[in-house]
């Protein structure tokens, strides 16, 4: 396995490479489409820290994404905050929401926990609906400042920001996976009472996982306001975000960091292509069919399939 410093160096190289992409790819459309794929990579990676490593299924990914998007829009509208401040603000609100939700709900498990996370989406969406400053149900039009000249345009700039977020999320996920935190979370996933008996501080670790997972998913929402120049509650707290956050790691594999990345790459790319080629009803259908197929035929995801083949051979 690659050592952590080397992994970080490779990840940094990928991010720096993104700086030069506008010179190689002149057409902005590919940055718009690529942004969405990367956005789902971040969301899926964030979701997997709690849902995959610890085994706590979270249906409320869109609550974190929406909170991040609205926090960034608020900072932009109120203070004209730059992107870095928007990202930090979104990350903070995600961590706070993660800890608060975790503290209130982590004593319940399984389906009860999953249902409790859905409530968070409803609460936040209702809050936004009734906040005139955030545009209410009509949404909030956001006019972001011009991006640095180097990028050539807003889509190239937000793509680069999302690329940096993606490699950062992957680095964090891998670090958790190979550290004592990951081992403890896996123990919780296997058997929580057994882990507790073995001295694993389960509640504290689950809260930590909630905080990191929430922070990452909220940061994924931060550049959305700049990307679309508009935030509305229906899109920000969309069921599609929650569904994809769940489906992508399940398709790729929840045991390790490449699973969500692979699942997001596969599913989000198919969805992007489908949007501009065939009927979009296919989008939701594709997620559903692929999810059912993987749950039935490859419950360990794509990476699990590879391990299974290796075991058979």
């Amino acid at each position, binding site marked *: 396995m690659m050592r952590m410093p080397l992994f970080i160096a490779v990840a940094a190289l990928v991010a720096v490479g993104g700086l030069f992409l506008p010179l190689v790819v002149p*057409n*902005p*459309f590919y940055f*718009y*489409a690529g942004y*969405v794929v990367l956005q789902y990579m971040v969301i899926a990676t964030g979701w997997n820290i709690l849902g995959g490593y610890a085994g706590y299924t979270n249906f409320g990914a869109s609550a974190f994404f929406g909170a991040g998007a609205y926090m960034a829009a608020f900072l932009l509208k109120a203070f004209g905050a730059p992107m870095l401040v928007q990202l930090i603000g979104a990350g903070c609100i995600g961590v706070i929401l993660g800890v608060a939700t975790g503290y209130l709900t982590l004593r319940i498990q399984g389906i009860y926990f999953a249902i409790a996370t859905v409530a968070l989406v409803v609460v936040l969406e209702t809050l936004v*609906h*009734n906040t*005139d400053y955030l*545009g*209410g*149900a*009509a*949404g909030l*039009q956001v*006019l972001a400042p011009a991006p640095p000249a180097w990028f050539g*345009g*807003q*889509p190239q700039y937000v793509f680069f920001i999302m690329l940096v977020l993606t490699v950062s999320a992957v680095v964090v996920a891998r670090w958790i996976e190979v550290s004592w935190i990951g081992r403890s979370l896996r123990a919780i996933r296997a058997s929580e009472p057994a882990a507790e008996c073995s001295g694993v501080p389960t509640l504290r670790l689950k809260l930590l996982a909630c905080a990191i997972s929430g922070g990452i998913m909220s940061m994924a929402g931060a550049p*959305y306001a700049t*990307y*679309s*120049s*508009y935030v*509305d509650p*229906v*899109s920000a707290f*969309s069921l*599609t975000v929650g569904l994809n956050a769940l489906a992508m790691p399940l398709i790729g594999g929840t045991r390790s960091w490449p699973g969500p990345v692979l699942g997001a790459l596969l599913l989000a790319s198919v969805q*992007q292509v489908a*949007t*501009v080629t065939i*009927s*979009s*009803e296919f*989008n939701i259908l594709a997620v559903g069919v692929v999810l059912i197929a993987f749950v039935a035929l490859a419950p360990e995801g794509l990476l699990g399939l590879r391990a299974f083949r290796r075991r058979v051979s």
Partner: protein
Amino acid sequence: MKITRRNFTQIGLGTMAGIAAPAVWSGAHAQSQPIRIGASASLTGPLSGTKNLVIGYELWRDDINAAGGLLGRKVELVIYDDQSVPANIPGIYSKLVDVDKVDFLFSPYGANLTAPVMPFAKSRDRFIIGILTLAANDTIKHDKFFQAAPWGPNGAENWARGFFDLANGNGIKKMAILAADTEFSKTAAAGGRRVSEQFGMQVVDYQIYPPTNRDFSAILRNVRASAAEAVFVCSYPADSTGIVRGIQEIGIGDQVRLFGGGMVGTQYASLLENLGPALNGITSFHLYVPEPTLKFTGIDDFLSRYAPIAKQRQVDPLGFYIPPFTYAAGQLISTAVKATGTIDQAKVSQWLHANAVETIVGKMSFNELGDWTQRRVLMCQFRNIQGNDIDQFRQAGKQVIVDPPAYKSGDLMSLAQSRKA
């Protein structure tokens, strides 16, 4: 090999021809290429009830192509499904402009879906026609935006002002206002309150209800107790149905002479069919109804061609609300392109700002923000609705225009009087 002078000349001429050929060919090729118009439509998702707007585009394209095209070039539509999701809009419009290389754009349907495309259109300096979007250009101020719908200047506040003009003209002194707790409704309600006060009317009841509310019995009892003479309602289709049913079940009182105004849903065939006679006496906004005072050139022909296509596609069979305006949006482009003899976006925009255009929904002229210079939102009162047959709404006299005066096809009857009739 020795190069003679003759060889040199031949090689030189050949090289020049070789260099010039692609330019000549591509110029000629560009002239033969179709003019492409791009749009997104909500073919799926919560706004999929508006997908009949595509029929308007298609009929316009067919008419233009049957007449020899625009500037001798065929017209081609490129339409993607936005799934009613604003998040899909930036990617779709980038695909239309950067990959499909469309020449002109139509906006998606409505304000929420158009909001993400306006900064894009402005930053790329693209010509775009708004499809029933309200106040889409108020903050962006893009000089190549034009609105197809007749909301008029300052539409966000004034689109339903005709209701208050009507109330004032009929001597109403006590106004009640009901609005769903959404931005669109609340803005209209706040505008309504201001106008009422300007006219010297007393707002005796002002209620904002949650958008998910379906039981209006308590709200309607409050209105009744307030002794309001007119009730301005800003509702969405599901609430509109609940309110109309509520009036039928518990009544609203004989003192109410004018009821409705901003009831979204009363323009759709499905709701008309569902509510039938319960609509009698209600006055609500519309953009087109088949009254004798709205006989624009081409509208009858358009609707007669629309009907069989709508039946086949199982969409709104009447098609009064949106499709005529998408056809008219196409007419704006074709008229301006023919007049200027070019597809240059700046010249076409300048021409549209300076000239009025005759369309199947009337004459359109635009102010500096691209809105119609004059509001022409109709206030129509439902009359003599019998049974739930949808075809009765194709006849005149079922949705009588009571405002604006220029298109009036009848006088306002009080709610109780018209329900008894």
